[in-house]
Structures are given as structure tokens and as C-alpha cells.
């Protein structure tokens, strides 16, 4: 039996998707054979004394592996106390870091840790192929990250035809109607304004009467600070509301803002829908938990070819996903509105998918808790190499961050080369 210490926040993350991710990751670890798991709470509300005690508890427990499973808080405060305890230890534990999309917000913290991690056996696990490309740029060769997609609970999200009718009754639409759905935060980088405007113009141009768009989630005020686009609270809501309000009455009747629903209701919502739409170009889009869950319910999707979303291609079911190309333009990330409209039109014409069972099966094969556990076994089987340093490119990125608050845009609001160098990993043809 290998003793594995799992470090994560017992306090719920404010990011709903991250609450589920950590819970499901923990289940994948717990299913992995021959491991004895020990759980440790590392939360943002802990005092320095709590963190000091945690570090000493971890050290005393003598685990062979320490897994940093959560995204928040950054492990720096803990590791600054813990790592020096191993200075005279002949066999310090192996460290495994699950990396989330917010890695790019913590360059300085990782930089501050790099010296202390030297010669320790370290592995980084990312959630998608495109994220691996990004993170590998930051690691010194030959160190490479592993991929373990954030798993979906197949007992919660699965294909079930019987829920379709009941959900449609809730929505007030018929079985023959086409229901597009978005779930998540309504935020600038997820291009909800484009979602609403392209759906509206498609429906209007086609004179389509049976298509509906259901938008689940609340607006936020994150904006796109990397691109120099800050927002005051309320601003984004007003932006999308104005777009909605400017539509004809008939079109407005087809766009439904549903607010947030508890996670346990989401599966039912996915069962009732026909197509998931996610036009995100979020800088932290390492994965796409809502897409994984929707696919597990058998939903076809319209996705941007950006970051982790690109990983939801189902090779043998080409029509299951339509990808919208993304390019890094002069002043922002650009998606083609005409392609989005074409994708809406294609699904409206095709009607309800008959491949839902196949989509669900293929998706769960890749994104279930069991599939994640297989990936974790591979990580554990591989002999870890001692960590040397982060890459020269990582140093360059850190240096840019030290010099300016806005390393990714010029004074004239143009995207800088350093942004392109990092995020070329998130676009197609990287």
C-alpha cells in the first residue's frame, strides 16, 4: 500500500465547477488500487498557525506521495513551511500537482517555489491536451505534464431518454422543438453577447419557429483583464440585456435566461436539451466541466476550438461537435460569427440527434471517474524525475509580469507577442 496525502480545501470553492472537480478527482484517487489516502484540509480561511500545523502533520504522517488536488489557495504558503522539513530527509515524498486553469494567475508564486522544488520528485497533471501544450512550455525539458481529464460522475450524468419530456414540460416547449443550451458563468470571455446575438440573427434569418436558447447561470464582472477589458459589476449584464432587448418580440420569446440552478438539476436540464453551445475564449479555459457533463448525457455541441474545449472532439462521431475557429487577433481573441450562425443552422436543420447514446458512451469512456483513475495509475507507474527548474520561457513570462501590470497588451491595446507565445497553445494548429 502506498500512503498518499490528498491536500485540498474542505471549504467549498466559489467556482461551482471546481467544487465538483475536486470531489470527483478525489473519488478517482480513492478508486486507484493499493493506495491508502489521507485527507488534509488546506483552505483560504486558515490562519498561519493552522497552515504551520498542517505542514507538520503532513510531515509526521510520512506519506510517500503528496497530491495537491485543489486550485485554491495556491500551495506556496504550505510548501514554504513543509519543504524545508525534508532538507535532511533521505527520501522525501513525491509531489503531484493537479494544475487548473488559473495557473496563469500565479506565475510569481510558482516562481517563488521553484528553488525549493529543486531535486524533489515532481509531477504536474493537467486536464486537457491544449493545456498540456501550454504548461509544457513552462516546464524545463525533459519534464512533461500528464493529462488526466477532470472526471464526470457517471452516476449523475448519463443518457436517459425519459427525462427529455419532463424537462420540456418545465420549459414549455414540444418534443419537436430544438433546444440549445448554455450553462456556466455569463461572462465576457465566454462570449454570451455573441451567443445571444448570433442565435437571434440565425432564428430571424431562417424564419425558424421551433428553436429555443436556454441560458443557465448568472453574470459576473471578470471582464477580460489580460486584454485590458475591465468591467464594473453589472456592466456585462446590461450589455447582454441590451442585445436581448433590441430583438423583435418573436425572437425574444425564444431566448430564455434561466439563472442558476443547483448542480443536481443540471443533468435533467441536459437531458431535455438538444445541443450544448459554449463559445468560450476564456484565458483559463483549461477544460470545460459543463461540456464533459453535457456530453455524458449525450448532447451534441457547438464549441470554440480554444483551450480545453478542443479536447471534446469525438473522433468517430464527427457530427457530434461543431468547432468554431478562434484566432488571436490584434486586440482580442476572435471567433467567426458567421461560423457560429452556420453551426446553429446546421443543428436546426438536422433536428434532434439520434446519436445521443453513442455520444454519451464515447464521452464517458474518456471522461468518467474510472477513466481518470486509469490515467492516475499511469502517472503513479511512471518513475518521476527530479525537478530542476521551470523553463527559460517561464522566466521570460515572470519577468514580463514583474515589469508591468498588463503584459499582454500594448499601450495602444494591441495583443503582445508574449500573449501569442503563451496562448498559441490554446488555438488550433499550435
Amino acid at each position: 500500500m502506498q500512503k498518499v496525502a490528498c491536500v485540498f480545501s474542505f471549504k467549498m470553492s466559489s467556482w461551482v465547477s471546481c467544487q465538483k472537480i475536486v470531489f470527483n478527482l478525489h473519488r478517482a484517487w480513492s478508486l486507484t488500487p493499493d493506495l491508502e489516502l489521507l485527507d488534509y484540509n488546506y483552505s483560504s480561511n486558515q490562519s498561519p498557525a493552522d497552515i504551520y500545523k498542517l505542514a507538520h502533520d503532513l510531515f509526521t504522517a510520512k506519506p510517500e506521495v503528496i497530491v495537491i488536488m485543489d486550485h485554491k489557495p495556491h500551495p506556496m504558503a504550505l510548501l514554504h513551511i513543509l519543504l524545508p522539513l525534508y532538507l535532511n530527509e533521505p527520501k522525501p515524498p513525491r509531489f503531484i500537482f493537479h494544475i487548473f486553469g488559473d495557473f496563469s494567475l500565479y506565475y510569481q508564486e510558482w516562481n517563488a517555489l521553484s528553488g525549493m522544488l529543486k531535486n524533489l520528485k515532481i509531477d504536474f497533471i493537467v486536464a486537457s491536451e491544449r493545456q498540456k501544450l501550454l504548461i509544457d512550455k513552462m516546464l524545463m525539458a525533459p519534464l512533461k505534464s500528464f493529462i488526466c481529464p477532470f472526471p464526470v460522475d457517471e452516476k449523475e450524468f448519463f443518457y436517459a431518454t425519459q427525462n427529455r419530456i419532463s424537462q420540456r414540460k418545465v420549459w414549455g416547449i414540444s418534443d419537436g422543438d430544438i433546444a440549445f443550451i448554455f450553462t456556466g458563468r455569463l461572462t465576457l470571455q465566454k462570449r454570451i453577447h455573441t451567443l445571444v446575438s448570433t442565435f437571434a440573427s440565425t432564428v430571424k434569418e431562417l424564419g425558424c419557429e421551433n428553436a429555443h436558447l436556454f441560458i443557465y447561470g448568472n453574470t459576473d464582472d471578470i471582464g477580460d483583464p489580460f486584454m485590458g477589458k475591465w468591467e464594473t459589476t453589472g456592466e456585462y449584464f446590461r450589455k447582454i440585456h441590451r442585445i436581448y432587448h433590441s430583438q423583435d418580440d418573436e425572437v425574444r420569446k425564444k431566448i430564455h435566461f434561466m439563472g442558476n440552478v443547483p448542480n443536481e438539476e443540471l443533468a435533467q436540464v441536459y437531458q431535455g436539451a438538444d445541443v450544448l453551445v459554449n463559445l468560450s475564449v476564456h484565458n483559463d479555459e483549461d477544460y470545460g466541466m459543463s461540456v464533459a457533463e453535457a456530453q455524458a448525457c449525450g448532447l451534441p455541441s457547438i464549441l470554440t476550438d480554444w483551450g480545453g474545449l478542443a479536447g471534446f472532439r469525438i473522433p468517430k462521431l464527427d457530427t457530434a461537435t461543431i468547432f468554431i475557429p478562434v484566432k488571436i487577433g490584434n486586440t482580442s481573441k476572435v471567433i467567426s460569427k458567421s461560423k457560429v450562425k452556420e453551426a446553429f443552422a446546421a443543428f436546426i436543420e438536422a433536428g434532434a440527434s439520434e446519436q445521443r447514446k453513442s455520444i454519451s458512451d464515447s464521452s464517458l469512456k474518456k471522461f468518467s471517474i474510472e477513466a481518470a483513475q486509469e490515467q492516475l495509475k499511469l502517472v503513479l507507474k511512471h518513475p518521476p524525475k527530479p525537478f530542476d527548474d521551470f523553463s527559460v520561457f517561464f522566466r521570460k513570462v515572470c519577468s514580463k509580469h514583474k515589469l508591468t501590470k498588463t503584459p499582454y497588451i500594448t499601450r495602444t491595446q494591441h495583443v503582445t507577442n508574449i500573449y501569442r507565445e503563451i496562448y498559441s497553445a490554446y488555438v488550433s494548429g499550435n
Partner: protein
Amino acid sequence: MYQVIKSQYDTGTALTHTGYGHDIRRDLWPKFHWDLYPIVNDYYHELNPYYVYNLYSFDMLETSKAITVRDGFLQFAAFLVTNLQKIPEADQHFLIHPALTPIVPPHLRKYFSAWKISQPKKLPLKDAKKVIIFGLVGETYLGEIEGMAAKLSPLKEASPETLFELYLPIRKEPFLTNHRESVMHYQLLDVIKDVLPGRKFKFINNEDFFEIGHFGSTYFFDLADDLSIVADNYLHFHVASRGGAVNLFSTEVPKDSYFDLALSFNHQLHVCPLPTVGSIFMELLLYSKRSSVKDLTLDNIFHTLVREQLKKHP
């Protein structure tokens, strides 16, 4: 009136808009503003929500013809008596909370309308899974402790399963120039326990509160005594726009609204004519001529006068 509001809506140029707010000299805002965090946080809509006590120059209003006044009656009264001449000159339209109407100079009423907020689908208190009791602990915000039991009594309606959280940040009295030690925090807890016996309470702080991503099934119960400090508390906006219910919001859409604006999927603002009430402005103006305190916002006697006068015109 409607044309000014409509034109303000069409341009959307508000002082808190990121496109226009960059040039604001926040260092010139009064110090008490920062003591009032988080109830005075900024938010945006096209009708320019702003605190008039943060207008360090009337010229700031040049680009927006209307302003939704978020101030409570203490700062608003000080603003009016100080800027009496400038209001007609600037030809601005001020949207105020209707409770502030008695302060408006009668001859300037045409420059004012009232804003009201409705939450038609507000969750009833008895159906709430969680209640958050909020108050900035201090007499200016909460009023006198003697009135607290009555204020809390509606909470007896909550279901026995409802969870109770207490979000009671301690702040110094914002307008007092001399620090005065207070035991109100302890007294308040005693009253809460007396009114809601047998309940368990969880204490939360700012960080805990702002980490809550969704307030569906949550009822936010603000203990604010009156509208002395703020008429428009940011936390109300924060909770309502994330699906929660706010005790001070009405479920009824006002019948006299002549302009509606959705602030979120869960609450909306209505612009209505000012209600017809008596005016106390002359009393305030006369006092201001006699007062030796340079900034009326910090004049505690002025505050008392405003409060007493308002009681006469409920």
C-alpha cells in the same frame, strides 16, 4: 423628464462605467467612503448610480444628464444645502430614493424623480433555506438597540430547517470625528438570540460572503435602521443579481413607473415621479447658515436635525 432619462439610457455614460470611470480621482473621495466597504461598492447601469458625496466637482456630471443617487439622507441633505445654486444651473436630473423626498427643495422638484426597486419573484422568507442577517455594527447604521427586537421579529416566520448566518462587520461610526467605544456588537447578539431562541448561527466575514457564488434560496435580511448612510446598499444588488431575496425590496412593480430598467434577471429599477410630501429643506438650510462645521456630512447636530425633521414627515 422622460426624455432626459431616455437620453441618459441611450448614451449609457455613467461615472462607474469602465469607459468613463478611469479618470475619477478616488483619492479625493471622503475618507468615510472607505470605512463603509462593502455597502458602497460601485456597480453600473445606464442611469449612472453614484454617491453624490463622491462628486468632488459638479463638472463630473457633464457627460451624464442623469444620476441615480445612492446616498442616504445624511449625505444627500448636506449635498443639497451645499449645492443649492448649482442644481438648476447644471440642469441635471437626480433620481433619489422616495424616502429622501422631504429633503428636496420644493422649487427644484422638477429636477428630481424617484427610483424604486422591485423583485417580483422574490423568495418568501418562510421558503428560504438560508437567511443571512446583515448589519454594519454601529448606531448610525443600525439605529438604537431598543428597536432591534421589533426589526428582527419577521425572522420568526422562517422555517425551523432554515440555516442562519450572521454577517455583521464591525466598523467605526463613519461620521463621528471622535472615536467612541461601543458594546453594540454584544448587545446585538443578545437580542438576536432572544428573538430567535434555539437557532444556531454561523458567523461569516467579508471573504466568506463574497465567496458565495449563488444566493438562490437565500434571504438577505438587512438590519439597516433607516436610509441614513446609504439608500442603495451594494450588497442588495450583489445578492439579488445572484438569485437571492432582499428583505427591503418590494415584490410589487410600482404602478407609477415611467421608465423600467432590469438590473439583473432577478430585480429591476423603476423611475417614478416624486411622491407628494411636505418639505423640511428650509429648516436644514437655515441650520447650515448657522453651523460652524465646514463639512455638514460630519456635523452630528445636522444629522440629528435631519432625523428629527424626517420623523415629522414620515
